């Protein structure tokens, strides 16, 4: 069965870049969201088992989204994909329950490596 994957980023270019970076042999059903609020809706509908989440977004940012997911115990494996690569950002999202922190721009190799590392692929 196809894995429900959610890509959440306010930039349409970044969403596209992320979708392209997913392994070609991975059977997925991709849903897109532009901010955290939309992402949470999608996750509640069961369409975000694996989530690629940006941090800097309007309406509801990545940190707030992670905090909500954690507090409400939503079922989602979140991988943060961020342009903010300061050590503090990584520490903070890990504490908020993100599986991994990937630097933008995302590459196909990096995506495959992380998915394999966590046994998702």
């Amino acid at each position: 069965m196809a894995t429900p994957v959610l890509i959440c980023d306010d930039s349409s270019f970044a969403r596209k870049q992320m979708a392209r970076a997913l392994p070609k042999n991975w059977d997925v059903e991709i849903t897109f969201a532009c901010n955290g609020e939309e992402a949470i809706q999608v996750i509640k509908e069961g369409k975000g088992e694996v989530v690629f989440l940006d941090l800097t977004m309007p309406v509801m940012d990545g940190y707030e989204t992670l905090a909500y997911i954690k507090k409400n115990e939503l079922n989602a494996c979140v991988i943060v994909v961020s342009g903010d690569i300061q050590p503090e950002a990584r520490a903070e999202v890990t504490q908020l329950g993100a599986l991994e922190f990937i630097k933008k721009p995302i590459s196909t190799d990096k995506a495959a490596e992380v998915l394999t590392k966590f046994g998702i692929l």
Partner: protein
Amino acid sequence: MNQSVSVSITEDQRDCYQEISNVAMGQAADLLARLLGVKVILPIPVVNLIEVNELRMALSGIENSDTVSGVCQGFIGNAISGEALLIFNDTSFSDISSLLQYKGVLDAALELELLMDVANILIGACLRGIGEQLDVNFSQGHPVVLGQHVNLNDLLKSDNYRWTKTLAIEINYKIEGYDINCDLLILFTEDAIDVLNRKVDYLLED
């Protein structure tokens, strides 16, 4: 200079420039954070196609009442040229000098040194980041002081641009817990916009 052809950018292109800037600005901020031992608060970069005489409006992060100091640095690579401006709110310097543990009196000479140090880091890293994503190798010229302790309008006036329209990327950096505020402005020349748009279109292709 081709004045008759009007340059423009589409919404998709603007989004792409913004995302590229976002990544580049993050890399630059990471270096600054490590240098100063602080957390840099990252904004959403603002990308606009504007008239050069509208530059003041692009600098939303700095108030009219503030006095500022700034440097500019030209760059060129693969037929894409422009200028990078780094403008500091003058109140920033005392915090920067203490974070860098500079000894001695904070005079205009030391402020200039600090300004040049930070400019080298931020401008260099940002251009490298943009260049990597667009597959362009930018060479940078020598930094030039635009002014110290002046108001923003005077600082921008002192510069004589030979082009009218510019693709402007504004990044306003603030430092958490400190009174440090600076605006990094990357200005691409009118002639560069066509080349840049083609590069961005290539990235946007399916």
